[in-house]
């Protein structure tokens, strides 16, 4: 049993990881992440890469929606911006992948700031609808500009690292997962700084935050920019992963998926973003596995896609009605149980 947490300095209080147990478990998790590609099959590696990309993007949305309180349904469009940036830079100028990824983040960031401009005047759900508008305009541009290859999209060569082409899930894993981990660390640290705390103040009450001396426009735009940067880099990774980018790759449904992921995971919590993205990416796959186990699966396979749609909706509704703080809260409850054992919490 662990009793309370005694902290004697501000540094200890603001530390990213506060206990030895936590550090030990994180080390275990890191070791597992390194060992995973050597043990898992191609299918699971493919899923792991997909999950990592979704985690990065969901974390970006969490910065904007979970921490700053600005609801956005444009995350997929920003991912699209990133993906197209990578595809265009690679096919036209053949630049190295790290530069492409940074540029993807940068371009998406600019896009995010432009979309965020109305956020000072337009609030709440009006803003959410305005971001839907942005994502439709982005879709239109992807489909109609000359440089984006029209509705057919762009296909690209795999990224290469030290002359090795990253063309299998195993090789891509070593690009995607480290980048995602880096971005997660960045996000977790962001909320120990002035900027992150300003975001939280804006979420809790934006007028009060302004009274306290936080310039609303600058910080809201910054939040939009950072969130879109995450989306852009995730989109760039997405482009390297699938190697075909079309306007249909980033539908409104994908933005809804990310919003659902942070709601299911827990808004305003880095762990929530991770858990939510993992969970929401894995559920359709688990459903497929369950369907394969059913006796007459060949006939039932037509029901797979509708069942996925229904389960997706039910998860959103169920979490909001029964567990509004999401998986992160469940996780905290479990942890508390073990901390306080043998007493009841």
């Amino acid at each position: 049993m662990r009793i309370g947490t005694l902290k004697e300095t501000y540094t200890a209080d603001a530390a990213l990881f506060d206990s030895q147990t936590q550090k030990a478990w994180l080390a275990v998790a890191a070791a597992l992440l390194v060992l995973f590609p050597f043990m898992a099959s191609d299918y699971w590696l493919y899923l792991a890469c997909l999950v990592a990309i979704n985690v990065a993007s969901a974390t970006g949305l969490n910065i904007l929606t979970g921490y700053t309180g600005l609801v956005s349904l444009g995350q997929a469009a920003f991912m699209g911006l990133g993906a197209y940036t990578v595809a265009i830079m690679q096919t036209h100028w053949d630049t190295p992948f790290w530069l492409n990824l940074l540029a993807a983040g940068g371009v998406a960031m600019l896009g995010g700031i432009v979309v965020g401009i109305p956020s000072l005047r337009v609030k709440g759900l009006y803003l959410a609808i305005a971001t839907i508008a942005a994502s439709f305009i982005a879709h239109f541009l992807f489909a109609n500009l000359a440089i984006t290859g029209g509705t057919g999209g762009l296909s690209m060569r795999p990224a290469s690292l030290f002359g090795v082409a990253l063309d299998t899930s195993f090789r891509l894993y070593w690009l995607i997962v480290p980048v995602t981990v880096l971005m997660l660390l960045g996000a977790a640290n962001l909320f120990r700084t002035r900027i992150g705390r300003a975001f939280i103040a804006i979420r809790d009450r934006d007028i009060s935050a302004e009274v306290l001396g936080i310039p609303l426009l600058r910080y809201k735009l910054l939040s939009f920019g950072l969130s879109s940067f995450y989306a852009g880099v995730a989109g760039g990774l997405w482009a390297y992963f699938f190697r075909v980018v079309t306007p249909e790759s980033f539908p409104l449904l994908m933005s809804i998926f990310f919003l659902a992921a942070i709601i299911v995971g827990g808004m305003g919590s880095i762990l929530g973003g991770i858990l939510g993205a993992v969970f929401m990416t894995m559920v359709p796959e688990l459903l497929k596995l369950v369907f394969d186990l059913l006796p007459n699966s060949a006939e039932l396979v037509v029901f797979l896609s509708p069942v996925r749609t229904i389960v997706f909706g039910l998860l959103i509704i169920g979490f909001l009605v029964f567990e509004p703080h999401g998986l992160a809260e469940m996780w905290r409850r479990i942890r508390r149980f073990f901390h306080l054992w043998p007493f009841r919490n």
Partner: protein
Amino acid sequence: MDWAFLFEISLTGIASGGLYALAALAFVMVYKATRVVNIAIGELLMVGAYLFFTFSAMFALPLWLAIPAAVLGTGLLGALIERTMIRPLLGEPPISVFMVTVGLGSVLVGLVEMIWTADQRRLPDFMPSQPIMVGEAFLAPKVFWGAVIAVVFIAAVLLVFRFWRGGVALRATASDQAAAYSVGINVPRVFSLAWVVSAMLAAVSGIVVGSIGGISSSMGVFGLSVLVVVIVGGLDSVLGALVGGLFIGLVEALAGAYLGGEYKLLATFIVLVAILMVRPYGLFGTHEIERL
């Protein structure tokens, strides 16, 4: 410039805008009474249309039975939604309730695909098919009769909610919930009423929209245009829903005729952004004053 063509296009636009206005009215009713942004309005439309399809094409019921049955069925669904999903979230932040309706939309699409498959289907014809001429301009009969139905229902709803007790209760709840409680209005029942009426209106517009363009599980996209309409008009304004509906119908028709079909949604969304920049609460929406 061909003025006759412009007139014809505008007429078609305004006529199809009537349907937007009807669906937007359904949306605004729920928003005014319960402050819920129901993004699943397009999916409710779809359910109404599919129920009508089931009653008339599969059970072969006569029209005068099939249409009320579909409308009542959707109303029942509205009541069910309100009781199971919306009421437990009373007092939660608006984003949560909004996301619940997003989930609801997904569930409804899945159910429709499961029961009726995702194929496009045609509703039985029930509107007269002689072409309508307004002066020199030709108007597709289905669009014309659709607009007529929309106008009739909008008028009926406005009258009913002006004079019926339940309608007065709904307007009282919309203007001040606490005061409505204190004069003895059963506010939770008003919430149910708003959802039921809204779902029924959605079913009516779904049946009309479906008989114009056919029904499929992606029919909910119509709801996206309705969303634009209510945001342009102002979420809590009935007048806004009507004006916005006609306006967006007009914009879509003009963009479709002069720029091409793929510009329709783009044009409406650009109009949306432009209006939000000038009037963040829509054309006729209430500008809420924030207090600390």
